[in-house]
């Protein structure tokens, strides 16, 4: 049986992990390779690196990070941020990443998903979707540009479109739940997961181990991503996994 995956997410800027990482027992909590190795040891099933560099230099540095992570770790990882053309995908995948994730670029240019899937295979292509509830359509609306811009896309319609275009996986972030630590958005996750035939990673809202149990059982998620609760050591990947095993969730 395929196991449910627990995925820590690391924000990387100019080659350093940023945004609230508090690791007292690491020599240098800003080093992506060291943190990646830490999460690997803890039992993380996969990692996501989000490149939030604004400059070309920062993006080039990211390629070095990808190379180092691939050289030292034996678990799969995805790189998102700054993937705007086929050439960007090539660079990241050749450096040793297993998947690339696109968000705004996929909305602006849906053909990009198709191009990537044709060239590298659907399994390499993740589409990240930021969704926020909109009462006027009684559903969730897709946002781009880091949640700053509303689009015309309703989330289910968009999820089905990216699946058709060849996305191999969806990374679904609930903007309503993100940062609240009051649990994943179960309704949203379930709606998307049941609408498509590709795996869905739930993101946004993880506050404790119970929330993972909910999103796997009720939300039908295939994987769940979290950042701050792991970075701040509010819980650990191994604690969450032990808890889920006791609850009967299939876990590695």
């Amino acid at each position, binding site marked *: 049986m395929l196991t449910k995956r627990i995925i820590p997410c690391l924000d990387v800027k100019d080659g350093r992990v940023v945004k609230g990482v508090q690791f007292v027992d690491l020599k240098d909590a800003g080093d992506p390779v060291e943190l990646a190795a830490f999460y690997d040891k803890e039992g993380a099933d996969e990692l996501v690196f989000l490149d939030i560099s604004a400059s070309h230099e920062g993006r080039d540095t990211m390629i070095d990070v990808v190379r180092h992570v691939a*050289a030292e770790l034996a678990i799969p990882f995805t790189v998102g941020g700054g993937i705007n053309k086929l050439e960007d995908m090539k660079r990241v995948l050749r*450096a040793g990443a297993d998947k690339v994730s696109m968000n705004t670029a996929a909305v602006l240019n849906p053909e990009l998903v198709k191009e990537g899937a044709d060239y590298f295979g*659907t399994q390499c292509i993740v589409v990240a979707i930021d969704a926020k509830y909109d009462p006027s359509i009684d559903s969730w609306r897709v946002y781009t540009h880091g949640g700053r811009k509303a689009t015309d896309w309703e989330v289910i319609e968009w999820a089905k479109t990216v699946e058709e275009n060849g996305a191999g996986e969806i990374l679904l972030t609930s903007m309503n739940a993100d940062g609240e630590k009051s649990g994943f958005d179960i309704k949203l996750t379930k709606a998307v997961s049941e609408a498509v035939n590709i795996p869905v990673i739930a993101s946004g809202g993880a506050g404790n181990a119970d929330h993972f149990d909910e999103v796997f059982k009720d939300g039908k998620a295939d994987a769940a991503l979290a950042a701050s609760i792991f970075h701040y050591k509010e819980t650990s990947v191994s604690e969450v996994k032990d808890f889920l095993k006791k609850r009967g969730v299939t876990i590695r």
Partner: protein
Amino acid sequence: MIGIIDYGMGNLYSVSKALERLGFDYFLSEDPEELKKASGLILPGVGSFRDAASILEKTGLKDFILSEVEKGTPLLGICLGMQLLFEESEENGVSKGLGLLPGRVLRFEGVTEDGTKYKVPHMGWNKLRFHHPESPLLTDLEEEHVYFVHSYVVHTSSPDVVIASADYYGEVPAVVGKGNVFGTQFHPEKSSAEGLGILSNYAELIERK
């Protein structure tokens, strides 16, 4: 020394680095003359079966691989590289593989016989079940989880070539082999200790030769 066949279809970096970490010598080449010097081969692969099969054919690598296998050189196909060991695939129309192992490569149906839908690709960690624990690839290993990511699956009517399998709405051949030909559907270089164990067992088999 291990020769990794570089035909432009695969992420060779992670496999190379894994071998380095395990302490085995390797080289990458697309040239059959160079690759002849290897005492064992790795055929990686990511992407489409049809493209990969046609490149192997055009570059003469297909004939090279077949003659090396005939001579007894060990060969390990990884992911698409494993699928290429079989007779044919229906990915983007039917195309011929290397035909070293009996079987065909078909897309996961995405729906069971009783109509239940399931997700494709088969993506994530799944547990191995050993059918031939005596295989040199499984030496000192337990039935652990390894990382899969694929939409096509091997169907074979010869259970003797399936060394280990995983369960995903049916049996998924995960480690295959016959004689000096081996393959893994999953990525050993991305499958933590279990995957590295398999890679290491293969490398040792070559060194013992």
